[in-house]
């Protein structure tokens, strides 16, 4: 997994609440057996018309946001399905940080498995960064995961919370399975005890 430490990038504003996983990556793109290559279909139905032409008004089609690495969005981002294709598509596009007042739980967890930092901030602070993002390519937002800070282009500094274990894994690009395998003795022990106490399982 790619490490996430610091990021200085263009932020794309999407001030819509309840951006769901069907918007992020519509189901016709879930028929892949790979993790890569979904960036071109990120927000597909909002991004292209029926003839596959780009819709110029959509934020990621605007020249100033084509290289966005950060997304600033409304409440409950990523609601809907468990499809990890959503963070795969976001990461494949080049976005490695999302800022929103809240996330759906499964999406939030999926981000950390894919080198994406989902940041939760109070609505007022998201509003400030949304305005900053609306300035386009001249407004770079800086993120420092180690110190848990976001700095706007106007030098507003906000701090954010993140689970210490998830932060550790993201900063070091750690593979969860490898970490769990180190605790295999505990799993063996649990399994042996459970096969006695709940043999029907």
């Amino acid at each position, binding site marked *: 997994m790619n490490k996430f430490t610091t990021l200085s990038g263009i932020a794309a504003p999407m*001030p*819509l*609440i*309840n951006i*769901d996983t*069907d*918007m992020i990556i*519509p*189901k*016709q793109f*879930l*028929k*892949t*057996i*790979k*993790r890569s290559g979904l960036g071109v279909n990120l927000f597909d*139905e909002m991004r292209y018309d*029926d003839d596959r032409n780009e819709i110029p008004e959509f934020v990621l089609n605007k020249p100033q946001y084509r290289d966005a690495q950060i997304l600033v969005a*409304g*409440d*409950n981002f990523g*609601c*809907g*399905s*468990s*499809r*990890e294709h959503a*963070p795969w598509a976001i990461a494949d596009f080049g976005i490695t940080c999302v800022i929103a007042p*809240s*996330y*759906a*739980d*499964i999406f939030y*967890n*999926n981000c950390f*498995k*894919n080198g994406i930092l989902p940041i939760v901030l109070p609505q007022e602070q998201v509003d400030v960064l949304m305005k900053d993002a609306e300035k386009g390519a001249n407004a770079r937002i800086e993120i420092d995961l180690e110190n848990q800070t976001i700095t706007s282009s106007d030098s507003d500094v906000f701090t954010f919370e993140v*689970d*210490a*274990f998830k932060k550790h894994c993201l900063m070091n690009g750690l593979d*969860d*399975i490898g*970490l*769990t*395998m180190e*605790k*295999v003795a*505990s*799993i063996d*022990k*649990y*399994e042996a005890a*459970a096969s006695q106490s*709940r*043999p*029907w*399982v």
Partner: protein
Amino acid sequence: MSPKTLYDKIWEAHVAHEAEDGTCLLYIDRHLVHEVTSPQAFEGLRMTGRTVRAPDKTIAVPDHNVPTTLDRANAATMTEDSRIQVEALDTNAKEFGIHYYPVSDVRQGIVHIVGPEQGWTLPGMTVVCGDSHTATHGAFGALAHGIGTSEVEHVLATQTLIQRKGKNMKVEITGKLRPGVTAKDITLSVIGETGTAGGTGYVIEYCGEAIRDLSMEGRMTVCNMAIEGGARAGLIAPDEKTYEYCMGRPHAPKGAQWEAALAWWKTLYSDDDAHWDKVVTLKGEDIAPVVTWGTSPEDVLPITATVPAASDFTGGKVEAAQRSLDYMGLTAGTPLTDVEIDTVFIGSCTNGRIEDLRAAAAILKGKKIKDGMRAMVVPGSGLVRAQAEEEGLADIFMEAGFEWRLAGCSMCLAMNPDQLAPGERCAATSNRNFEGRQGRGGRTHLMSPAMAAAAAVTGKLTDVREMMDLPA
């Protein structure tokens, strides 16, 4: 001992390791797998030389992609990419030695219907699947939730998940439901009350007389949509109905093991003075048959209401509501019962069980669907389909003008050929009304099976109570 919730009890029984910071390895009793979210996980195992730790606890069934037309044995009914995914599951199931119900098996169906039907899902278990509607299994008092593909790989390799405990939320539905009101109306009404993020960070336990009165099928409908309320998992404490449903199923325990299991299951309830982080109470008698008008499952209104205006809302919902109204092609102030539909979909892991088909058939008996209406019933599993045929329900559907399909997820998420065309409007018994969910530009109104059946007859969103023989 301090009082505990049902969630606390199941959680504690499954912690295989707890780190100092509270991060736990939660042991997984049942891992359900389907073709869409698993190929990358199996590929990951291959690339790292890992194996499936507990193949006997891993159950796979293709459902999302599979055609539901009667000619589906013909491979040409599938697009190439869908066929590759289903074939990948065939291969992975064989290679890793996991339980498998292929498309050709009469037991095949939607993973969340097959699991309980075959007795894989039992009270007190932890159940996961790479699908958000895994919450369905909570109806048995099992801690069940959706996971992403990386977590699918993690469970395959280690039979555990890295988790932190969520908070406890109680949703109580008191008293009795009124006639014409179903489990679907309960679960939609709860989401209408709490919003789609109201349950984020919580595990919901549904309780109260109206919940206890529901059949297992109804309870599965309620828990299924916990995720639409933001909660990863929904739970209902097991009781006699639960035990009765489980008893004798192919993978349920038998004999002395059944007795031992039963003894433990009877301890699975929330203690009287357990702590709840959030409590929501609805009166059963206040719940009406409902439909959704917008593109979020929280956009719920009684069928007797009118289409709202964006200005009825506040904050970010104003813009979202306007976007929904535009997408849905609806005008504020229109009575919902004036909204015309052209498609009806009865099925899905929310409402594709036998009781759902009985409820729809009861409305349709002796009636015809409106001219030009496209209506389909997609049973949740091959066994549900067989039972419905035996009970004569299939004949009622077909005589009314419905297509009688084979089992699968079908038009709930439209990954197979069952899709809406742009602008088509569907009365659906599924779980999501998101933009494009049932096909690009398609418009979805969520409702109960009986309501969907009523809409098929009249061609409009309809108050099913007007088509029922209700006590005066």
